[in-house]
Every structure is written in C-alpha cells, then in structure tokens.
C-alpha cells in the first residue's frame, strides 16, 4: 500500500501537533516565559505604555482638552529652568525626601527595639503600630489637616492652655511652617514601615548570639552594635532606600495638606506636575516634563537598591 486513507493522515498530523505542543511546554524556558507573560503584560500596559507616553507628551505642547499637540523638542524642560516655582519644588522634594528619612529610621528603630521586649499586651501594641501605615493616606491627611487648622488646631489649643504661646500657630501658613508640618506628618506615616520591617529583622536575631555575647562580656549597647545591627543591616538599608523613593514620589499628603501652598511654595514634583498638567493650567506637556525630572533620581536610587539586594543574595 502506498496511500493511506485521508482520515488517518489527519489523525497522525493532529497527534504530531499535540506531541509537539506537549514537548514545547515541557521545555523549561518556554514555560518560564509563559508564566511570566501575565506579569509582563500588566507591566507593559500600565507601566511602560504610560511611561513612554509621558515622555512623548513631555516633548509636545499638548494641553488638556485638545486632541494632540505640536512637537516642541526639549522646550518644556528648558522652560522649567526659568520657573522659580520649579526651583522651589526641587528643593522641597529633596528636603521632604531626605530630611524625613533619618527621623523615620531612628524612630522606627527605637519603636522596633521597644516592641521586641516582652511586656503585656505586646501583640495589641504591635498591631496598633501599623495603623498609620494601613489607614489610607488621603484619610489620615485629613486628620492632619484638622490638627494643623489655623483656628481649631488642638496643638495650638494645648500650647495656649499651657501658656507657651499667645496666639495660634499658622502650621500651614508660611513656607517654613508648612514644610515642617508636612515633614512631621510624613514621619508619622512612614515610621511604622521602618518599625515593622526592623522588628521583623530583630526577631531573626538568634537569642543564642545575644547570650554568647553577654557571657563574653558585652553590655546592652555593645551587643546592639556587635550582634543586632549586623544582622538587621540589610533590612535597614533596603527600608531606607524604599522610603526615600516613596517619599520622593509622594503626592497625597502634600496635595491634601497644602495643595502646594502657600503661594506655590511647598510643591513637590508630584503635586506641581499635577497642578501644571491637569489641575490649573492644563499644560500636559510641561506637567509631564516636571514629573520626568524625578526619573533620574529615582533611577539612581532604584539601581543602588537592586545592586544591594543582589549583593546580599550572593
């Protein structure tokens, strides 16, 4: 016989196809890419596309309401050099991002060390500690708005009652006051993250190491530096970098508390970009350029973070 019935041929082919697919799926690299594809898709759709669109928009004079704008090259970026508010924005963002972090780190470490001690109701307190972190920032910021209110502020009320001040403090009324107030609210919100992360690290410190060091003659402080700190160092570095990145890219707290005021003096990148791009002027191109100025700083910080994580894995 030299010819086979057509049905058999079709069957053989379909078998071959199925075999081939099965073989293909058995290959580890293929499977790996297959499993990663949903993640990649989400990244492409919601991260990469907006990012590259943002870059494109920053190179045009596009405004809200108009379908598209003209290509203007780097004009948006260079124009910002002459913008006094933008200068303030850069300074504010660096103050906001870098000044708050040491406080958060120190307070978080202190809290973690306290909560690592044995005492009654410890677990309740540990859970309560997380509250500032769990509560949506928009909501907690409203509470801070009330605390900082020019007329109703309980802080002012207390200080007046104790006779320490004569009249209410304008917490959000001047640039200096407003920035300090913003930083305090940010420290309040960010400290639990440090505390919880460091607490987790502290619990990974073997008790035996402390006991060995105690027998060898180390007091509490010496044990902290010789035993505790080296073990939690990695967590501290990673937490710090994350915190700088998040604070740098913050929006909600500043938007709710000051909206960049008074007189546009407390903007950070996020809020100023929103105001120029969407809120007031609707100049999408310049708004995009402002937020893209964040990119180099965040890229450098992220690179340091990734390198550090990798060096720890090795």
């Amino acid at each position, binding site marked *: 016989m030299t010819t086979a019935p057509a049905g058999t041929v079709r069957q053989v082919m379909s078998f071959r196809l199925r075999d081939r697919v099965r073989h293909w799926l058995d290959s580890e690299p293929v499977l790996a890419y297959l499993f990663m594809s949903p993640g990649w898709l989400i990244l492409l759709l919601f991260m990469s596309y907006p990012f590259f669109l943002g870059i494109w928009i920053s190179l045009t004079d596009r405004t809200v309401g108009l379908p598209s704008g003209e290509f203007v090259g780097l004009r948006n970026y260079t124009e910002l050099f002459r913008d006094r508010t933008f200068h303030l924005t850069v300074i504010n963002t660096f103050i906001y991002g870098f000044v708050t972090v040491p406080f958060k780190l120190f307070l978080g470490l202190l809290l973690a060390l306290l909560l690592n001690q044995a005492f009654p109701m410890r677990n309740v307190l540990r859970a309560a500690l997380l509250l500032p972190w769990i509560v949506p920032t928009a909501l907690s910021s409203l509470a801070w708005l009330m605390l900082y209110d020019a007329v109703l502020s309980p802080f002012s009320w207390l200080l007046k009652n104790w006779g320490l001040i004569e009249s209410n403090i304008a917490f959000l009324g001047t640039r200096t006051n407003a920035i300090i107030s913003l930083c305090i609210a940010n420290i309040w919100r960010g400290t639990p993250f440090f505390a919880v992360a460091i607490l987790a690290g502290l619990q990974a410190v073997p008790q*035996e190491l402390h*006991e060995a060091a*105690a027998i060898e003659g180390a007091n509490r402080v010496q044990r902290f530096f010789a035993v505790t700190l*080296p073990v939690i160092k990695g967590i501290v570095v990673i937490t710090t970098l994350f915190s700088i990145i998040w604070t740098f890219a913050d929006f909600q707290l500043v938007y709710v508390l000051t909206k960049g005021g008074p007189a546009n003096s407390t903007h950070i990148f996020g809020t100023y970009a929103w105001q120029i791009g969407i809120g007031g002027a609707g100049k999408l191109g310049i708004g995009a350029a402002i937020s893209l100025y964040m990119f180099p700083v965040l890229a450098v910080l992220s690179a340091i973070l990734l390198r550090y994580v990798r060096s720890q894995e090795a």
Partner: protein
Amino acid sequence: MAQVIYDHVTKRFDGVIAVNDLTLEVKDGEFLVLVGPSGCGKTTALRCLAGLEEVSSGDIIIGDRVVTHIPPKDRDIAMVFQNYALYPHMTVYENMAFGLKLRKMPKQEIDRRVKEVAEMLGIQDLLNRKPRQLSGGQRQRVALGRAIVREPQVFLMDEPLSNLDAKLRVQTRGELIKLQRRLGVTTIYVTHDQVEAMTMGHRIAVMNQGVLQQLDTPENLYDHPANLFVATFIGSPAMNIFPARVVTGEGAVRLVAGDVTLESPAEQRGRLAEYANREVLVGIRPEDLIVQPGQVGEDRHLRLPVEIVEPLGSETLVHLRGPVGTLIAKADPHVHFSPGELASVRVKIEHLHAFDPQTELALF
C-alpha cells in the same frame, strides 16, 4: 580553674519547676556530664550556672565566690552552644578575639592567644573565613576555640556535638576528652546522649523531671544504678525489667515471675527477705543473659522462645518471650538464632538488680 557548687538550686518557670532543689558539687578540673531526657532540666541547670537564667532559690558558687546574682560576664565562664552561636558577620579570628577585645586586652596578647588556640584546634588556616564558609565540624571547633582563648575558670557545654554527623561526633568526642584532660579546666557538659555521658565524664549527674537522680562515676552508674530511672536510662539496649514475687522458705529466697523461678543472689537474701510475699521489680542487663540456641545447657537454664533477632555486626540482640513481657539478650554475633525456636538462657544471678515497686529505689 575552680570548683562549682549548686546549693539547693531551684528554678521555676510560671509554676513549672524546671530544676528542683539541685545540690551538686563539681570538683576543680573535673569533667562533669549532666545527662537526662529532654525536658529534664539539665540545660536549665547549665543556664543558671551561666547566669542566663535567674535562679528562683538556692545559691551557685564558682571557685570561692557566690555568683547567684552576678551577671554572666562577671562569672568568668565560657559557654559552647548547641548551634555554636558564632557571630555570622565576623571572621573566625574576630569571633575568637571578640571576648578578649571586650576585656581590653592588648592587641598583641589577643593575637598570640587566638593563634595559639587556633593551632591547638587545627583551624589556623580558617582564621579569615566567615562562619558560613565553614563545615559543621569546623564551626564546632571555632566555637570551642572561642571558649578556650578566654581561659575561663569553667567551660559550659550545651550539647556541643549534637549537630555533627555520627562519625564526626565520635571523633570530636575523643578530641574533646583529650583537650579537657590537657587543659584541666572544670567542665560541665550537657547531653541527652548516654553514650557521650558514659565516655566523656569523670562523673555523671543523671537528671529527670528537674531532680538529680544519681551522681556517680560511669562505672558505678552502670553497675549500681540508684533507682529504676537511672537503671533504664543508662545502657543500650536498656536493662530488662519485670515484676517478680519474693518467695521465702526452706532456707532459700526465690524470685518468681510467671513460671520462672530465680534464686536470689546469695548476699542479697537478707535484703530480699524483707519483701517476702510481695512483688519487686527485677532488672537484668542484656549482657547478663547468656543465650544459646536450642535446648542445650543445664536443667536450671531457662528455655524461652526467640521472637526477633537483630544482628548488629559486633553483637546480636535476641528478643525472647520472657515470663512477663519481652527480654532482650546480647549474644555472640557468630551464633545463629531463628525466630520461633527455643533458646537456652542462663541468668547471671550475681548481676541481678531489684527495685522497690513503689519508691523505684534500688534494693541492690
């Protein structure tokens, strides 16, 4: 170097008594092993001595100093932990030098001591490595070295060999014995392993449920256990124990268990006669049952059916269906036994043990 005294030491944890009225004297230069099943209080006793646990009552004396309320660092002791507790971010050298640095010892002296001890332990080539780059055996040596460089009055060791594999454990055991005899430092060694206890200690303190059961040399512990617990805890396989009734008459004292009758050892007749017509617990070690296959031997030998045969190479364990329960006997590995067959068993009467069934204390 110093003696160590536990003077009526009790340690309670939330109502649980971990160590109960422990009184114990460790001589200067002695290697004392604290042994017992897990939860017996041996580790707690050691930690009380180290100062890692506050005693509830009683006193601890090191040398001629009462150290009961003195912090660990001022007790002049060094401890080797089960998991070694090496500082992970420090090199071997730094691990060993840490305690000396804290004592503000001059750098040259630290260097001299660390290198000397490292050489003694054969770890001089590892001084620049981190603990995670070492094998289990090497880590164990570093932990030991860290204790030795301090030149303390007392070494405390909490199951230091239990994380090593079987072969290395035997080897390290020998090295540790030699090292202790050479340094002559008073050593208190905690283990749950009775072989370690028997081979390493000058004397052994057996503990159970927080109470010291017996403190004696390995030989005495084995030959003259003070009570039923020590008798069954020390020795592998454990001592055979079965109840028997004491029958007196016709000038003889006999032990009757089921259909088996054993003569009392001559010198123990008086002691046993006190229990006439009552039950005692009889103990016999597996090596004191002489077994032969088949129905050979004299009439007074027992004839017991073989249940299981466990050839271990150096010896064979024969499980016999005894008058009350199973008896295990150690037999010559070259003699063949078959399950189901009868074996002839001679009991070395002179090595019999007997225990009061209520107090579980040894009669002999």
